[in-house]
């Protein structure tokens, strides 16, 4: 399957410090969720920054739809079809849900296309339609996250980059958020997901990639990674295949 976004042998870091990513590569096929897991400091968020154009790699290539887009600005990356949903809550809290969603389609100048996208995201995220006129800051954390997802889909991106979407959410809201990630995937969007809640993320993803010290430590189908005894011990906090109560998740 052709990759929507591909990072090839990326070396990247901050300032003059040692590189955080040391020859990292990953490819996200269309209509799939690829999940990056790994310990703190492994470089997961740095991968997303490079993919979104927020951090220029020192070496390596970034391909979107087969086109080399290495070094493009965040705005041009957005135009190229890469949307980023930031960690935590990034809605414009004192603007309505409608205004937030429309801001996501700010680069769309065709009003008909804009209306179509609004209808599309309203259909995909019912809470967006239900709370259309409400101030975004008054929504719950899970609802705000869905508004962010809807906003990111307004430009009909090839790829959505999600940075810890379950952060700060209760288990119920986390379940809803992961269900929405699957819906985005089912709608044909490629999703690159970074998540601390590794078990939950791998249950949602098609492919997984374990990052350690800026390199790929393990990669493969998410179900295989979940069943991998080494991964279970190191990163998932338990024996492979061992189911934890829902209350402990999230």
């Amino acid at each position, binding site marked *: 399957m052709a990759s929507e976004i591909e990072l090839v042998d990326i070396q990247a870091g901050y300032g003059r410090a040692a590189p955080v990513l040391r020859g990292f590569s990953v490819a996200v096929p269309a209509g799939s969720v690829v999940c990056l897991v790994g310990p703190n400091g492994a470089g997961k968020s740095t991968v997303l920054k490079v993919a979104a154009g927020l951090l220029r790699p020192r070496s390596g290539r970034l391909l979107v739809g087969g086109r080399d887009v290495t070094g493009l600005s965040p*705005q041009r990356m*957005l135009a190229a079809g890469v949307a980023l949903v930031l960690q935590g809550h990034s809605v*414009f*809290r004192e*603007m309505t849900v409608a205004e937030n969603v*429309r*801001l996501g389609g*700010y680069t769309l100048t065709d009003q008909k296309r804009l209306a179509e996208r609004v209808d599309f995201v309203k259909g995909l995220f019912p809470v967006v339609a239900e709370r259309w006129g*409400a101030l975004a800051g*008054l929504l719950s954390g899970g609802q705000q996250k869905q508004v962010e997802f809807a906003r990111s889909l307004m430009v009909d991106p090839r790829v959505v980059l999600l940075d810890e979407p379950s952060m700060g959410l209760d288990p119920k809201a986390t379940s809803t958020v992961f269900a929405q990630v699957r819906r985005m995937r089912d709608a044909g969007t490629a999703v690159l997901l970074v998540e601390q809640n590794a078990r939950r993320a791998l249950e949602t993803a098609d492919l997984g990639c374990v990052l350690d010290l800026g390199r790929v430590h393990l990669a493969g189908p998410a179900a295989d990674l979940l069943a991998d005894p080494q991964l279970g011990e190191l990163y998932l906090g338990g024996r492979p295949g061992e189911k934890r109560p829902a209350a402990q998740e999230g």
Partner: protein
Amino acid sequence: MPSVSSRLTGGAAVLLLATGLLSFPGLAPNPYVLSAGIVVLHYAVLATSWNFVGGFTGYLSLGHGALAGLGGYGTGLLVTKAGLNSFVALALAMLLVSALAVPIGMAALRVRGASFVIVSIALVLILLLVFQSWASLTGGSRGLVVPRPFDLSRPEHHRVFWFLFSGLLALALLAWWLIDRSRFGLGLKAIREDEDKAEALGTPTFAYKLVVFVVSAAFTALAGGLYALWFGDLDPVFQFSVLTGSYLVLMALLGGVRNLFGPLVGALVVGVALEYFKVEFGNTPLHLVATGVLLALVVLFMPDGVLPAAGSLLRRLRPAGEQASIRDVTAAELRERRRAEEVRR
């Protein structure tokens, strides 16, 4: 889309404003009251003009006094030195100030927050020095006398300028309202909330800030120029004063920066209070003390301004079934609810 009740409220406010503007010259008991009314109306235009930048982008400029001064001196100099018709001079001065606002904005809008405030103050102080020192052109500290555009009696002169200022206010309000409902306005409001986030979503933040700064400068220059034609005497100390910018910030904050009529309401309160203090207590700094106290009270008790606070009070008094939609919650209420939520947790 605005609700029916907010449309009705808006329509009633426009009707009230139009009635007030049209009837005041007939109701004013003497020319002094009418001239004091013009001063307040002048403040209302300036505060509304300031609100293009302050209200939409959240950038607090204390330098708008300088833009008004440039409009005033530009108009005055084009009349006295170039011999232009007063209103041609006014239009030309507006264009010149708008053009000058481009490099000023390009320099000032690169910084945010307190740094922007300091840059805007520096603009006022630099222009004060220039206009005081360049006496051969500006008249320096002796001031600049601007001829009246009409050969009318004093009361008639006031009456005509009342309507001119009213027209300018209506134009500024219309422009603000149109921007508020546009895609451009949406981008500006996103800048006010989080500039980096807005940029990440594809809003050309710098270009937008610059355009709205130039629009604001154009209206401010028109207000300054019209004031020069009405008052007829310009002094750099009063034209290029940081106090003017501070008054505008106070007026806009008092009325509510996110509301079309907020700066107008603020100008009514502050403008009338300033006139009252000057008449009652003469040339003392008491009006400055009162202004400071007012600003402190507004920031403490009505951070979103009088109009949002009044709207919120009205909603609380309404029976539960008639309460407005969730959209009408003010930013202050939002903060209050968040705090309560955090305490509960």
